[in-house]
């Protein structure tokens, strides 16, 4: 249990464990790519889930957000929220491109 320390010195084991987790998840990502007959969308969901998982580990342990004050949480959260804005508005374009304003709208 290395993560409980309140001080600013963190044991090396925190970083080695982070490394092993990342490596394990990398193997998992590659392995998932080899499962036969996975529909495309599911593949994307699996890959993105693992990616978010990895990112969370890095942010929490490596970037020390887990041990930081509210302000750091706020800024880290804002980063994700901004990513969400980017994805939401960009996908809104793709989703609504085929919509017709009225039936028979010319291509």
């Amino acid at each position, binding site marked *: 249990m290395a993560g409980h320390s309140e001080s600013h010195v963190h044991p090396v084991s925190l970083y080695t464990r982070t490394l092993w987790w990342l490596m394990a998840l990398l193997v998992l990502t590659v392995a998932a790519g080899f499962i036969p007959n996975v529909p495309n969308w599911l593949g994307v969901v699996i890959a993105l889930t693992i990616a978010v998982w990895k990112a969370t580990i890095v942010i929490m342990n490596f970037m020390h957000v887990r041990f930081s004050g509210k*302000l750091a949480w706020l*800024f880290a959260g*804002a*980063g994700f929220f*901004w990513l969400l*804005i*980017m994805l939401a*508005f*960009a996908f*809104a*374009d*793709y*989703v*609504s*491109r085929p*919509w017709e*304003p009225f039936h028979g709208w010319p291509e």
Partner: protein
Amino acid sequence: MATATYTGTEKPNYLNWKTTVASWLLTYDHKRIAILYLVSISIFFLLGGLAAAFIRLDLATPKGDLLTSDIYNKMFTTHGVIMIFLFLIPSIPAVFGNFLLPLMIGARDVAFPRLNLLSWYFFMAGALLVLIALFRGGIDTGWTFYTPYSSSFAKGEVSLAIVGVFLAGFASIFTGINFLVTIHKMRAPGMTWFRLPLFVWAMYATSLIQVLGTPVVAITLLLVAVERTFRIGIFDPNLGGDPILYQHLFWFYSHPAVYIMILPAMGVISEVLSAFSKRRVFGYHFVAFSSLAIAIIGFLVWGHHMFSTGQSMYAGIVFSFLTWIVAIPSAIKIFNWMATIWKGRVHWDTPMLYALGFMGLFVIGGLTGLHLAAMATNVHLTDTYFIVAHFHYVMVGGAIMGYLAALHFWWPKMTGRMYPEGWGKLAAMLVFVGFNLTFFPQFILGYMGMPRRYHSYPEEWAVLNVLSTAGSSVLGFGYLLPVIYLTWSLKYGKVVTERNPWGARGLEWELVDPVPDPHNFERIPIVTRPAYDYAHPEEPTGFVPKPRPVVVGGKDG
């Protein structure tokens, strides 16, 4: 001086206490890093200006006799890449932000001095790669690096230039992180959020954009390089990619980036207007929060660059509406500034001339942005000279005017010397006249349908183009003048003996000397008054606590 430590007779200041080359190149002093940035971006400004001169000379004749179309394409790309990434983005933040932020909030340095120096090295490394790419034949993608041209077709060192912009981008992120932490953590006692000078608020908003936006463009450009090199399908439809995706990702950063350029200039304008009309900035809170509003809403409008790309009409409607909204905080600032100088005792010194120039030109630039934000008019105006005129009014008429105002305003603080006022005024006039002569005709040309990024055009547009080229020579002369007389003033300018030659308010003007000593403040001041307290001219903003701190109550607001 041969030794690295100070042995002179003058009082030590940040310029003379160490003078070796190493003491500059390895400095952690925010003021010296500001000077490093100032020297570097001045050189890039001249290079970018040279490319502009070639563009305008070519367009002096309808046939475009000077350059081939190929060279012309490389010229406007060179101009755009250098001016945007190597000049405007770092300009006010990296020079005046670095120099002033700690002074203004009563700190001895920024939060991460080493990161600050690293920022300059990243910037220079990026700039070097861009320059190498340009000298090894140049690139012709435009500063926007639009796919699929940039990723599948363009020849030349596109990838190298992209890596250069990537590095410069990280330099900008470092600056942003540094300023955010500095403003949060290092304000002097008594320097509450609403006593901060508005320049600091503007820098805070700018830093948010730098931190939240720049990573996106950096990775996006890298993806272009990856697709060019390894043919991995991201933007190329033949490989399963989508070229419009590039524009989404690029403008997610690059529209907010226009606010990286204009917000700091707006901060400067608040300082200068109040100092030269001797009045508190009217509607302080509105001006402060409008900076934040611009930074946040500025992230929601990028699709206005994509109305004619096949972007969904519904997305277009939303982006168009949000673009109109983002004009409101800018207007709030303009109205508050007008109320600031209204019935003030206006002093017509050079910085004030630039500030007033900013107000007029930014209004024209912003209002024409509204024409562009309307989808119906956009179809007619997009990719014409109207766009070119619009963004030069905001970036040159706005951001560079603010930059020049800052340069003259804080010159005595940075160098301990005064620039020659008569020459300063003359240059400001030339810049204003030359600017309008150069860019106003381009609104008309664009309205008449002249497309941007072509090196020749039909005869009937010759008169307006000649006007524009003639104006650009006046403008160029107006920019060269400060380069000459400011350099001259370093040696021959009047030595400034008072620490506050303008009678301005703010901690940076209350330091012991004209040129601050290496550590800014002997003791950290205690701030007792709101910013711009011109109503009480004798009382300083903060005082140095000796022998014991007595906190005198000052009313905010």
